[in-house]
């Protein structure tokens, strides 16, 4: 959403996201898609090489894209067991909205 606002204001934007689903549905101008856990768009903490690979891919898309809405998928595997990765990005305490949804579900 912010990418669209900035682009409309005359700035060239590129989004790096683990959720290309939203890019497609909202219509984000340029997206580099990574299959990384939420909140880790550029990679793992302390992994300079991985972060730089993603950043360079974003710069390349910015330079090369001629098609509004382009989504370029990056084939980098997240180097952590799935269950661990899925658990690690989530807050230690459920967010207020998730708490509310769980309570609503309990009370049917």
């Amino acid at each position: 959403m912010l990418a669209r606002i900035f682009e409309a204001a005359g700035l060239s934007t590129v989004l790096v996201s683990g959720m290309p689903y939203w890019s497609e549905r909202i219509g984000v101008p340029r997206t580099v898609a990574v299959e990384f856990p939420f909140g880790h768009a550029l990679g793992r903490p302390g992994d300079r090489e991985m972060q730089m690979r993603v950043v360079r891919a974003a710069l390349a898309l910015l330079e090369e894209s001629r098609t509004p809405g382009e989504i370029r998928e990056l084939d980098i595997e997240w180097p952590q067991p799935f269950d661990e990765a899925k658990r690690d990005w989530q807050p230690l305490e459920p967010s207020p909205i998730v708490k509310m949804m769980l309570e609503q579900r309990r009370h049917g």
Partner: protein
Amino acid sequence: MPVDSFKYLPGVVAAYYRNLSVQREEPIPWTPLSRPLNECRFALVTTAGIYARRQDAPFDAEREKREPMWGDPTYRRLPRTVRQEDIGASHLHINNRDLLADVNIVLPITRFLELESEGVIGSLAPTSYSFMGYQMNNSEWRQRYGPEAAGLMKDEAVDAVLLTPA
């Protein structure tokens, strides 16, 4: 292999997202890059809800706890000189541990400073920006805070923006 947007999401969140109806507005806004990368000035934007502790207050997580449908729509400015130990985090929907260890996973300031000194990009602007991504209603972003941040970037002669969601 195609990127699976739902791979790491809990079932309840994935189901919620799949059921949300979103009206895609056409056309998609489009600003072609106006000059080569090595002449471009960049700003970085994340919705990871981070802030520079020495100069700013956290996002309003207390109100969100009282009103779970509300998310703080304001933004924070982060100078390119910000140090890792000065980064604070307000987002209630992610575990902030990793970005408190290395902010470059959402706001790649160090990587862009490196690219600047290598001459790959023109420069990193003095200021980068952080929003808090949990917004059930983004009208404040659209009407006020988004255009305001865009204006600040233009004041700093920014050409291009790299964004990361959270």
